[in-house]
């Protein structure tokens, strides 16, 4: 079995895995980081979004071996102890989640948006959410949350 090494939430990890292991399987099953979800497994829903070298990707549509040497950020790496990341806090404050299944993907996608556009317009946020499906909220509060999270991150 090939071995793979990457940095996940700042910590170096390596493991011997089957070559066909998806990045999301590696995160959830090998590393037990179950905050990243699998909604569809068909590249449509965005529940599995994590950041690879800063860019948001669907971890169900990438092999773990393709992330060799990369910096991976997942939802588990955002909070500092009991203090939520400003984007997480904004989702809490603005009711940007109900069941929470889509939320980690929404938050990780939002961080990639803010990286390129620190002050995104409502239109930009809505366009950016093209690949993140939510079955609960109707999106309005997610859009509000991301705008507020971006504002908090600008400080």
């Amino acid at each position, binding site marked *: 079995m090939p071995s793979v090494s990457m940095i996940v939430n700042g910590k170096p990890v390596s493991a011997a895995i089957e070559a066909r292991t998806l990045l999301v399987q590696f995160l959830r099953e090998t590393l037990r980081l179950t905050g990243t979800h699998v909604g569809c497994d*068909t*590249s449509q829903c965005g529940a599995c979004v994590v950041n690879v070298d800063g860019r*948001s990707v669907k971890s169900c549509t*990438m*092999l773990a071996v393709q992330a060799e040497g990369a910096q991976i950020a997942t939802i588990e790496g955002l909070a500092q102890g009991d203090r939520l990341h400003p984007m997480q806090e904004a989702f809490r404050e603005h009711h940007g989640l109900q069941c929470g299944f889509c939320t980690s993907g929404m938050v990780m996608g939002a961080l990639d948006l803010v990286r390129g556009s620190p002050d995104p317009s409502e239109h930009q946020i809505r366009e950016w959410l093209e690949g993140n499906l939510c079955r609960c909220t109707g999106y309005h509060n997610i859009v509000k949350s991301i705008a507020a999270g971006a504002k908090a991150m600008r400080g």
Partner: protein
Amino acid sequence: MATAADGRFLAGGHALLPSLKQRLDHPSDLIDPGAIAELRGVTKAGGILTIGAMTPHADVANSAVVRASIPALADLAAGIGDPQVRNRATLGGSVAGNPTADYPAALLGLGATIHTDRRQIRADDFFVGTSKTALGRGEIVTAVAFPVPEKAAYAKFSGLASRYAIAGVFVGKSSKGVRVAVTGAGACVFRDLDMENALAADFAPRAIDGLRIPVSGLRSDRHASAEYRAHLIGVMARRAVAACR
């Protein structure tokens, strides 16, 4: 690749991995050329814009060079799928994997040349049928060279779920004439010569107002009937001509 019984290149994986999950394809080996830096990036020399095959859509959409020389191409890349798809899926994968995707319309509409490890192929000779290209076994697309046009634009009517084109029309105008490429509507991207001739005489949306688009050869599926697609081609073509810059 030479020693693999039935190998595939794995680029962005956004077509290949879903098809492996569904057991629609059974390759013996996967080869990821992702580490080859030469296959990635944008360069412009003379009137030619060259984009490496492993360049993801997001890099084309965000490239200042692409935006300055062929804005229609940057806009097309920015309209593919969603942000996460654009961060992974590549030009080479779109061109090699699916002759009804968005990029093939730009290649045909701009008269681009596909560079491989073995040869150069004109877009006109590259897209040859349903899921078929002129690529040989184990042949890899290394880059695509786009001649910079006077003006160009792409208009597409997207499917609601995937954003793939139900009908997409790319119009390119250069000193060599006008090219009109239609994607998503048939089994393979194609040029519409009637529209090209009409636009060569008068480059304005009204020039193609009355043209009838033949229905034969167009797809009918749960997204749209062939008749509806024929209608959409006319609408998208007029929109593209009006948007040309």
